[in-house]
Every structure is written in C-alpha cells, then in structure tokens.
C-alpha cells in the first residue's frame, strides 16, 4: 500500500500497524509521536491501529528550539 510519511509517498507492506510502520522504518517509538490523517495516535494505540492505503502519517520528535 502507499503511505505518505512525513510528506514522502512510499510503498509499504499491506496491513502494517503504527508499531509495525515504526519498526519497518527502524524507529524506536520512545521519543516520537505519530499522527495519522491529522489525528494524534496515542502510544497505547500503536500496536492496534492498522494503516490503510493512502494514509498520511507524520512522525515527529523534539528538536532544538526556543
């Protein structure tokens, strides 16, 4: 299926959960937050929320700021 992750369209295996996507991308879930189609996904939901073709996902973290 096609997902847009942080603005980039790419192909991913069908049926991935959020946790699965993060694992696929090699991201440890601890210090990122995930938004799917403009809705924040709480960490507890990561193992359950299954992604669908066309979903727009944002994976964010903290960076330096003032």
């Amino acid at each position: 299926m096609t997902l847009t992750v942080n603005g980039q369209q790419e192909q991913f295996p069908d049926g991935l959960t959020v946790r699965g996507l993060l694992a696929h991308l090699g991201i440890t879930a601890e210090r990122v937050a995930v938004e799917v189609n403009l809705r924040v996904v709480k960490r507890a939901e990561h193992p359950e929320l299954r992604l669908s073709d066309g979903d727009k996902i944002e994976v964010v973290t903290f960076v330096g700021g003032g």
Partner: protein
Amino acid sequence: MADLLKIGKHEFSSRLFIGTGKYKDFAAMKAAHQASGAQVVTVAVRRLDLKAQGEAAMLNWIDKSMALLPNTAGCYTAEEAVRTCQLARELSMGDMVKLEVLGDQKTLFPDVEETLKAARVLVKEGFTVLPYITDDPIACKKLEDAGCAAVMPLAAPIGSGLGIRNPYNIRIILETVKVPVIVDAGVGTASDAAIALELGCHGVLMNTAIAAAKDPVLMASAMKKAIEAGREAFLAGRMPRKLYGNASSPLDGMIG
C-alpha cells in the same frame, strides 16, 4: 521559606526558562543548561528525519530533572498550533506547552487573534498553556480569562536582543493579570533579564541571548545571577528615584 514560581500545578525555584536552539552542539547546550540552573527547557516539534537514523537524540542531552516546555514555533494558525501541542504532549508526557502562533515570518510577532483561538481550545483539552504574546495588557487578560497558566509577553522581537522595549506595558500587564508573567523573547544580556524581574515579572524565557553569546556557558551563569539579582532587588524594595539625591556622608562635623 522558599520563593517559588508556580505555573499551574508546577513549582520551580529557578525563574529562568532556557531554550535548546542555535547551540554549536549538544555538549555546548548541556554545559550552558547546567550553568544556568534552569528547571524548564523549551523544545520544538519537528518531523523526524527518516534518512538520518542514529542521529544524536537531543533529549539525551537534556537533564532528566528539567521540565520540558514544547513550543509551537513555526505555526501560523490556531489549528496548526493545536495539532502541534497534541503531538508534543505525546512526546513529552507532560501537559505544559509554549503556545506560539506567529503572524509573520520576518518579525516573528505573535498573532493575537489566532493565539487566543488556540489557547481556548488547548485549555479545554487540559493543557497547561503558556502563550507567547505581544506586550498587550488586554490580550494578556483575555488569555488569563481563557485559562492560561501564565502569560509570556515579548520584551522585544524574537532574536533581536533589544531588551524590554516598553517597560510601561509590562508594568500595566503586571497590574492587569494575576497569573505569572514570564518575559519571552528579546532579552539580549544579563541586565535585560534583571530588569524584567525588577519590574515584578515572575520569570524570563530566553534562547538566543545564551546560545548566541560568544561564551554561552559564561552567559548562562550571568543570566542565572542576573535573574536572582533582579528578583532579590524586587523583593528588597529599591530606593526612590529623585532628580538629585542626598549626601551619603553626614553634613555635621566637618572640620573647620
């Protein structure tokens, strides 16, 4: 009895809020943080760089005892800012946010109307909201009425280093709201921070003044002392101002 700053349910003995931007590297940032004695640290929320696996995670360089204050820097609408706060809460596991809805990329002044809109939403969603705002007593009052835990008027434009451009407005804000007043943005050097506290402000948030000093660690130490000095001077009750004064040495007993 400790002189504590209370923001919502949080309490801090340091009145300096420090940033994490513009440092040469994370080690320099950590050293400045330590010298500053700050207990609150601002961070920004950005997309993870998916290509840059293994990049040094900034959070590893922030002392665990410091409270995170995620900002919404770069947001130009209430909607973006609310969304950013929701993501930040997931990340920080905390409820404090620095609400910052900008009106303009060049001056980085806040948009009062959008900030108010966002604040009303965020308070309802349970955030402890610290909004960056103009030095406008009415905007500050409306933010307080909306349930913000503090107000953070600017001293001068972000990154300008001009110090408190309008102490009159800051004084009026201090008379107008009951929540803590944290001066945010525009501080350039130690005396600027001291002046904020002397006016009666409850704290100062700064980033560039420390990060862009030639020696950030020494400037962080200067800021720590300046903020303590300003607070103590405020509490000590300064002498009155006069056009001319009185001799410090007695007039009696002059030799003949």
